[in-house]
C-alpha cells in the first residue's frame, strides 16, 4: 500500500504543496521540449521530402554550432560567423545530395538510414579534427541573445526564467511559423509538399528531385544551426550534445514521422513529461530515470497508436 501511495498520491501532494516549484519544473520541461521539438522538426522535414530517416540530424546540430563557435574563436565577427555557418550548412546539403543521396536513390530505407550513420561518423571526426574536441562556449552576447534571468514572485514563491530560454521559445515559434508559411505559400514550398506526397508524380510534373533534396537538407541544416545555438547557450558546445538528438526519437514516435505539428506537440509532451517524471517520481527508483523515461513513454504510447499522434494512418496492402 505504501508504495502505491508513493506512486499515485505523494507526487501530487508535493505538486499542490509547492506550486512555484511545479511551475518552475513545467517551464524547464517546456523549454527542453521546445528544443526537442526543433530537432524532431529537422528529422520530419527530411523524412517527408526524401523518405530518409536522417540519423545525422543531431550531429548536424552540433556540427553547425561548432562551426559557428570555431569561426568566432578564430576572430571572425559573430554575424559573419553566422553567415559562414549557414553557408557551410548549404555546402553540406549539396555534398550530401550529390555524394550520398543520388547514388543511393531507390535503395531500401535501411540503407539510407545506414548512410546517414556514416555521415554521423564523418561529421564527428571532421568536426573534432578541425575545431578540436574540447567543449566550447557559445558567444551568447556577441550573437545578440539576452542573458540573465527574470524572477517572478508568484504562488508564494520565486519562479526564475532564464532570458535565453524565453528567446529560444520565441525563436523556435518564429521558425516554425516561418516554415509553415514557406510550405504553404511559396513555389518551392509547394514543390516540397508535392515531393513529400509522391516522388514520381512530382517528377512527372517537372519538379527536380535533386534540387528539392538540397533545399530540404539545407532547411534542416538551418534548423539544426538554430537548435545548436540554443542548446549551446544553455550548456557548452561539444559532441556530448548528440545524446540530446537521441531524445528527439521518442518525440518522433509520439508525433508521427511525417507531421510537423506532431513534432512540436510531441516535443512539448516529452519535455514536460520527462522533467515532471524525473522531479516527482525519479527519487522513488534512485533517480536518473530521465535517460529512459521518454522512450518507455513512447513505447507504451505506440502500443495503442502505432502511427503516432498526427501520423498518417497506416494502410497495408498486399
Amino acid at each position: 500500500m505504501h508504495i502505491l501511495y508513493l506512486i499515485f498520491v505523494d507526487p501530487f501532494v508535493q505538486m499542490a504543496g509547492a506550486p512555484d516549484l511545479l511551475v518552475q519544473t513545467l517551464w524547464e520541461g517546456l523549454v527542453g521540449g521546445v528544443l526537442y521539438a526543433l530537432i524532431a522538426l529537422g528529422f520530419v522535414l527530411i523524412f517527408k521530402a526524401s523518405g530518409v530517416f536522417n540519423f545525422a540530424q543531431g550531429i548536424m546540430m552540433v556540427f553547425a554550432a561548432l562551426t559557428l563557435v570555431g569561426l568566432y574563436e578564430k576572430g571572425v565577427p559573430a554575424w559573419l560567423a553566422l553567415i559562414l555557418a549557414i553557408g557551410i550548412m548549404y555546402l553540406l546539403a549539396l555534398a550530401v545530395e550529390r555524394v550520398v543521396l543520388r547514388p543511393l536513390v531507390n535503395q531500401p530505407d535501411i540503407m539510407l538510414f545506414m548512410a546517414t550513420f556514416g555521415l554521423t561518423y564523418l561529421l564527428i571526426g571532421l568536426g573534432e579534427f578541425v575545431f578540436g574536441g574540447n567543449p566550447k562556449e557559445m558567444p551568447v552576447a556577441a550573437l545578440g541573445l539576452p542573458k540573465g534571468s527574470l524572477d517572478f514572485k508568484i504562488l508564494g514563491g520565486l519562479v526564475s526564467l532564464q532570458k535565453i530560454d524565453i528567446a529560444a521559445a520565441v525563436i523556435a515559434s518564429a521558425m516554425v511559423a516561418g516554415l509553415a508559411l514557406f510550405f504553404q505559400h511559396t513555389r518551392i514550398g509547394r514543390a516540397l509538399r508535392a515531393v513529400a506526397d509522391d516522388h514520381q508524380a512530382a517528377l512527372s510534373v517537372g519538379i527536380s528531385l535533386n534540387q528539392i533534396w538540397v533545399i530540404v537538407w539545407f532547411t534542416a541544416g538551418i534548423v539544426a544551426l538554430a537548435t545548436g545555438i540554443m542548446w549551446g547557450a544553455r550548456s557548452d558546445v561539444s559532441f556530448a550534445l548528440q545524446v540530446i538528438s537521441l531524445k528527439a526519437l521518442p518525440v518522433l514516435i509520439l508525433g508521427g514521422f511525417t507531421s510537423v505539428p506532431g513534432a512540436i506537440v510531441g516535443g512539448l509532451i516529452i519535455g514536460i513529461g520527462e522533467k515532471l517524471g524525473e522531479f516527482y517520481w525519479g527519487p522513488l527508483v534512485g533517480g536518473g530515470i530521465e535517460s529512459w523515461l521518454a522512450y518507455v513513454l513512447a513505447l507504451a504510447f505506440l502500443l495503442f497508436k502505432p502511427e503516432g499522434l498526427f501520423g498518417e494512418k497506416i494502410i497495408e496492402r498486399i
Partner: protein
Amino acid sequence: MFYREVGQFKTSYAADQAIFPIRQDRIGLALILLVAFVAIPLLGGEFLIASVMIPFLILALAAIGLNILIGYTGLISLGTAAFMGVGAYACYKLSTLFPQVNILVWILTSGFIACAVGVVFGLPSLRIKGFYLAIATLAAQFFLQWCFGRVGWLYNYNPSGAIEVPGHSLFGVAVTGPSATPVTRYYVVLCIVVAMTWIASNLVHGRIGRNWMAVRDMDIAAQLMGIRLLPAKLLAFAVSSFYAGVAGALMVFIWLGAAEPEAFNINLSFLLLFMVIIGGLGSLLGSFFGAALIHILPIIVRAAPNALGLSVGSATVEHLTYVITGALIIFFLIVEPHGLARLWQIGKQKLRAWPFPY
C-alpha cells in the same frame, strides 16, 4: 574455372539440400577451420589472438544474432548492446552465486536469460514495425543500461559499480580471469562461435528460417499463408537475444575481464548494426565479414601512421578513424548496398566463369 561444380552429381535429397553442395566450398570451409583451430594459435602472436581474433569472434557472434533479427526477420533493433549486457550481468551474477558450477553452463544459461528479456522487449514488434520498432528497442537499450548502473544487486553492490570476472577453470585449465592464457580463451570462444554458427545456419535454412524470411518479405502475406506472426517474431527476438546474451557473457568473461554499464552503451548497438549491414543483411558469412571490417579497420588505421613513420597525435588519429569509418560506410553502401556477402557471391561467380566474362 576455379570454381566449377561440373561432375559433382547429387544422388540423394540430403545431398541436394546440403548447405555446402559444392566440393570447393567444403574444402574452403575445412581450410578456414584448420587455419582458425591450428594455424592461428600456433603462429599468431599474443596481440593477434587477444586483441584481434577474440573480439572479432565475439562481435561476429553478436552480429549473427542481430542478423537473425534484422536480416532474416526484418525487425530493426537498436538494443543489441543491452541484450549483450543482460547476458554479461546474468553470467556474472550466476557465477558469483554458484562459483562451483562449470562456467560454460553459466555462459549458456545467461544466454537464455537474455532470451527471456529479449522476448519481453520484442512484444511490441507485433504492433509496430520499421523505424518505429527501431526506436522502441531504444527503450530497451536505455532502460537496461540504467538498470546495470542503478540496481546494486546486479553488480553485487561493488563500490566501483563495475563487474569483475573471478577466475574459473575448465577441466583444470584456467579459462577466465587473469591467469587464463590468450590461447585458451581463444579456443573457448572459437568452439562456442563455431557451434553456434552451425546451429544458426541450420535454423535459417530450415522451416523456422523460411518462416522468418516470409515475415521479412511481407508480414501480412506471410500471415495469410498461415505463418503465425507472434510466435515467428518472438522466436526471432528470442534467438537473437540468446546470441547477443552469449556474446555479451563472452565479451566480459573472456575478452575484457571486467566491465562497466558503459561498455554496453548505444554505440556498441550501432557498431553491431554497421557490421550487419556492411557485411550483408541475411547472410551469416556477412556477419563475419562485417565484424572483421568494423573491428579490424580502426586497428589498422591506428597502426598506419606508426608503420609509415609519421608522427601524428593520438587525438588526431582518433578523429581520422571516425572520418575514415564514416566515409567507408558510405562508400560500401554506394558500391554494394547488399554488403560484403554479395561481393563475395559476385566474386565466386566470376571465378566460376573465368576466363570468360559469363
